[in-house]
């Protein structure tokens, strides 16, 4: 396979945006093109768009073509949309990666976009039920929070993880978001604020949850030759893995505090990249809820099983720790515009591994990891490097 690199990246302002679906695409596209001087839309050979529910929000299908036209891209090698719930963006990156690695294309943009607050955030909460099983789960009113709450309860019962340790994930990521001008939230949060915020689904409180957010992000993937023409500091895709345990809650492993699919996806990515957990300097993990970040530390090998609570409490996932997790603020601080999230994680790696992340830069970061999931049962891991191998 041929090496593949990120040659550009851009993210729009995340939040409850006074901007349409197409306008979010324009904003992320502009930010991405601005990061690659000399690159014009018609130079790109393809576009993959990760987007989950425009049919329900913008009442719009045929998304990849809409976005290509909006940005002036005329695909000659690849044009596709990925819908894979919350991991749609990372799945799109894997498609573009595979096309370029196989020699079927040299230069492809991956864009993720979601306009969730349309006409209101409450509509998005209703729509989120499409991500779980309609007939056997969503018919009861199930959306994401109770699923992850079940994982949190199990983790607390089995390993003694505390509500305060869950809250510390919220504190860290809200605090990190204050250094990211594109984050949904910018005020930070204290431990007391997180612990006193309203209960969503026991034991998960509001500040331990990602919000309903509009946003878009874009990255440019390129073959080695094209990447070096476009920039003197490409960020290399070193490894990738994806694995599925199941879709319905009743078919996942009974112990919701164990996510074997994440472990498998991580191991596949590490093996391909030729690195291990201790080599990772910076990670963006899928903290849709605080418990997800804790379990990610364990399954990705940053700490032992069951020790994630003390890991976060000791600051080992914060600035100066073993691995800086979610420096951009994660999903809790940045918000979670579904299809955009995986692409925004990649954009953060592009900034971090080029020393361009400003006040949130992880000093000397050379290896970065992203983790994007679709529920507790399905996970995508990407590993990026400053060096090609």
């Amino acid at each position, binding site marked *: 396979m041929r090496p593949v690199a990120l040659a550009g990246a851009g993210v729009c302002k995340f939040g409850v945006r006074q901007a349409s679906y197409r306008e979010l695409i324009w904003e992320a596209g502009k930010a991405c093109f601005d990061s690659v001087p000399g690159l014009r839309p018609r130079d790109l050979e393809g576009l993959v768009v990760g987007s989950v529910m425009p049919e329900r929000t913008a009442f719009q299908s045929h998304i990849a073509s809409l976005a290509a036209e909006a940005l002036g891209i005329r695909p000659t090698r690849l044009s596709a949309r990925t819908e894979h719930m919350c991991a749609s963006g990372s799945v799109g990156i894997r498609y573009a990666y595979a096309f370029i690695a196989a020699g079927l294309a040299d230069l492809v943009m991956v864009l993720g976009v979601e306009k969730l607050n349309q006409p209101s955030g409450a509509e998005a909460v*209703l729509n989120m*039920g499409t991500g779980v099983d309609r007939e056997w789960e969503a*018919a009861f*009113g199930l959306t994401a929070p109770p699923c992850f709450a*079940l994982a949190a309860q199990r983790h607390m019962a089995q390993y003694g993880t505390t509500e305060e340790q869950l809250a510390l994930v919220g504190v860290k990521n809200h605090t990190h978001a204050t250094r990211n001008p594109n984050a949904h939230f910018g005020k930070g949060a204290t431990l007391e604020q997180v612990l006193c915020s309203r209960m969503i689904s026991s034991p998960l409180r509001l500040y331990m*949850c990602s919000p309903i957010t509009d946003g878009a992000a874009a990255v440019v993937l390129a073959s080695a030759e094209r990447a070096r023409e476009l920039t003197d500091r490409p960020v290399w895709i070193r490894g990738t893995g994806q694995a599925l345990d199941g879709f319905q*809650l*009743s078919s996942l492993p009974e112990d919701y505090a164990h996510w074997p699919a994440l472990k498998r996806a991580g191991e596949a990515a590490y093996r391909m990249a030729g690195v291990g957990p201790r080599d990772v300097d910076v990670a963006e993990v899928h903290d849709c809820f605080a418990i997800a970040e804790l379990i990610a530390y364990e399954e990705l090998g940053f700490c032992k099983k069951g020790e994630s609570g003390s890991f976060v409490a000791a600051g080992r996932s914060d600035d100066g720790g073993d691995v800086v997790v979610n420096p951009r603020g994660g999903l809790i601080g940045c918000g979670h515009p579904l299809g955009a999230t995986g692409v925004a994680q990649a954009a953060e790696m592009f900034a971090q591994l080029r020393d361009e992340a400003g006040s949130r830069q992880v000093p000397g970061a050379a290896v970065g990891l992203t983790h994007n999931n679709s529920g507790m049962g399905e996970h995508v891991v990407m590993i990026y490097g400053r060096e090609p191998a």
Partner: protein
Amino acid sequence: MTYLRAVDPFPLQSADQTKLAEFYARLATGRLSTTRCAGCGRMAWPPRAFCAECCSDRFDWVDLSAEGTLKAFTVQDTGLPAGFTGPRVFAIVEVDGLRIFTIILDGGAGSPSIGQRVRLRPLRVADGPAGDPRWLPAFAPA
């Protein structure tokens, strides 16, 4: 303009809409049932018309116990989708060795506890498009 719930959140349950109509017919009379593969004998939850083990599409209906054990639960207070109200007890109940996702009704009657015995209490929801009554397999403390 608001278009909350311009969708039907409940499954279509009548025989002209689903091969699994028998499940709902039995549920309406207070019986919990599922499918057993006619090829390999595997019981599944939820019911299915294709066996993921042996690829058979032939199945028989079998009744399950109406009682089970509460294995895990969470109470959602806020942030529920339009048309659903909190507090709502989402749960995993084990019945005859099968793990069933459901809700526990009468949650206000006292806090549920892991290991507690619960009993099927079919929950009537909005009628189907042909005016047919629809039911979901909910549970309540036994």
